[in-house]
């Protein structure tokens, strides 16, 4: 996976069905901001994210730790404590505005319209409750059925996500499951109410590499069957190549690049994305080939720098005339001449710079 990605520059996303451009829009996020007031000041965890997602599509949200990928997605589920967070902008999920919505609304849409799978299946399942009832509980919360019916549904779901002996497994505790099986159970929990949107927050990070591939395949299969839209939060570009139709790159709480997975991985238009690609090891490169990590650290979310947040670490800000990068925050705008491609950068011709200077170093 990794080799196709950074090695050749033509990482055709594998086994993805063709996109239906007329599929209904499930989710529209516009200028989403999430802030957490703390004793040290206001933490700007998300300071402007916009994207759109249609049924059956998979969007990968990529970025370093602290780039706001999880925080922005948890806002969709209403999982931020309203007393400890400030959320503004707009989240339109299946026609319903969620920013400022009451907890009752979130209770209704959770698991039915939007469901979430978390990073560490070990800690995300209740350690003292049996797996079957944990899944059945989500079904019971939204369906007027008996416990037996819900329990049966849980077993069906375990079967569907490839847990062997689902009858017996449903009566076991999470500690009796392996890591991969636990994540399958989490996916069963996520899909039990057939949600229109499934948010997966680094679902493979805590897993073995071989199990990772199985889980990604499973998610691809299930998406075809259930037709859900998926948001895949990840920092692993190999995962992006495997599963995503679209990619949203985030940096310091803002969206910095958006496009189809193929385009963003093959012809990125933002210096931060170039940095991400350069820091991925390649299996086809010679032994001893140096990696190029992005120098420096992400900015403090307590006080973001003036202008472009990436400027202090960017090797290309001197190509922009004047001191625009330091003075002016770039708009998230369409790349000139490339419809459907969005970037947040002042560079006039990023395509040329990438082709001439960056792409050769990725070989």
């Amino acid at each position, binding site marked *: 996976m990794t080799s196709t990605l950074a090695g050749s520059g033509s990482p055709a996303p594998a086994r993805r069905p063709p996109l239906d451009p007329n599929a209904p829009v499930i989710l529209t996020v516009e200028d989403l901001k999430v802030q957490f007031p703390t004793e040290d000041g206001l933490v700007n965890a998300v300071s402007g994210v916009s994207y759109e997602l249609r049924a059956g599509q998979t969007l990968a949200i990529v970025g370093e730790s602290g780039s706001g990928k999880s925080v922005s997605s948890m806002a969709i*589920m209403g*999982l931020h404590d309203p007393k400890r967070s400030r959320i503004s902008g707009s989240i339109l999920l299946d026609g319903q505005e969620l920013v400022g919505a009451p*907890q009752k609304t*979130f*209770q*209704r*849409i*959770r*698991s*039915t319209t939007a*469901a*979430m799978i*978390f990073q*560490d299946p070990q*800690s*995300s*399942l*209740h*350690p*003292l*409750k049996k797996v079957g009832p944990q899944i059945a*509980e*989500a079904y019971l*919360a*939204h369906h007027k059925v008996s416990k037996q019916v819900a329990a049966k549904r849980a077993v069906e779901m375990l079967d569907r996500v490839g847990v062997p002996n689902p009858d017996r497994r449903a009566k076991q*505790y999470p*500690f009796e499951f392996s890591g991969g099986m636990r994540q399958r159970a*989490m996916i069963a*929990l996520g899909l039990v*109410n057939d949600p229109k949107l499934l948010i997966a927050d680094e679902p493979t990070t805590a897993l073995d590499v071989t199990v990772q591939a199985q889980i990604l395949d499973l998610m691809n299969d299930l998406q075809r069957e259930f037709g859900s839209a998926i948001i895949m939060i990840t920092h692993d570009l190999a995962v992006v190549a495997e599963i995503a139709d679209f990619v949203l790159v985030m940096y310091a709480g803002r969206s910095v690049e958006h496009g189809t997975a193929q385009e963003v991985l093959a012809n990125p238009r933002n210096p931060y994305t170039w940095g991400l690609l350069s820091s991925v090891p390649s299996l086809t490169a010679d032994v001893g080939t140096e990696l190029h990590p992005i120098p420096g650290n992400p900015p403090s979310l307590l006080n973001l720098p003036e202008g472009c947040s990436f400027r202090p670490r960017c090797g290309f800000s001197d190509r922009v005339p004047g001191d625009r990068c330091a003075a002016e925050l770039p708009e998230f705008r369409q790349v000139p001449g490339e419809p459907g491609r969005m970037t947040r950068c002042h560079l006039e011709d990023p395509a040329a710079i990438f082709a001439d200077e960056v792409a050769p170093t990725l070989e």
Partner: protein
Amino acid sequence: MIVYLARRILLAISVLLATIVLVFGLFFTGPAKDAVAYQLCGTHCTNARVKTINQGLGLNEPVVKQFGDYVKGIVVGRDITNNGSFVGHCDAPCLGWSYIQQESATTMIKQALPVTLAIVFGSAVIFIPGGLILGVLSGRTRGSPLDRIIVGVSQVIGNVPYYAVALIFNLYLIFDWHILPGTQYVPLTQNAGKWFIGFLGIWIIYGLFNSTYYVRFVRAFMINTLSADYVRTARSKGISERRVVWVHALRATFAPYLTLIGLDIGTSLSGAIFTEQIFGVQGLGLLAIRSLGQSDLPVISATVLVGAAFIVVANLIVDLLYVVVDPTVKLS
């Protein structure tokens, strides 16, 4: 499960046996072994007189024989003799004979035990749910006025020494203001109503005071648990917040809470000295203190043994309940 049960019970029994050996060794072979003789011979006691008394009571016999008699007394009871003449019979389980009271220590403990049991278990009815409910309320509304009140009150009460709190409580709520009925011990078998009323004040103050400690424990635990990943998962299912807190988060609190409560109860059963003294009821605590004052060695050793037994049994019960509460505990 049965193997586990058998092993745990065997372990508990062996700990008890070891305790018997230790108590015997401590009180009847160490420097304290002449205490009974000194007690009986009064002032102007000579070494020769002590020796004579010890001889009469059989306390100069070889340690092994004395220990044999001691254990025999616990198992089947024994006759107490002085210079060959019969003093009294000490029924099994004979934990010792008080030459001062002319009575078996077991009888004395049997009289005091119902008081201690009533104090501890009656107040447990208050502090077990009290600590849990207030702790959860406080933890889930962290930073709210409710939380501040609960934490503030429990800090203030909990940080004043218990005897002061109990004394003030007794003075005002019972004596001066007559808000609560006076405390006294009436045996349950004699008059259940009077028994209840007699203990009511004790239960409330002992229960509330103990709750202050458990409230803070449960609160801290809840705050931790409420930020756990599996609580977030529960919330993302679309169930009510009440269910998230009182079913998912609370479930995780049971095991540690149970351990804490179980061991505390085991310890408390060896006597609540301040409570008994202040509220004028005679339980194991006062029995132990009075025996200490009289250097009544056989009774002191008996209260130590009984206290140890309670802790061993409480441990055993906690371990067994743990299997029910926490499925991740391995039964081996």
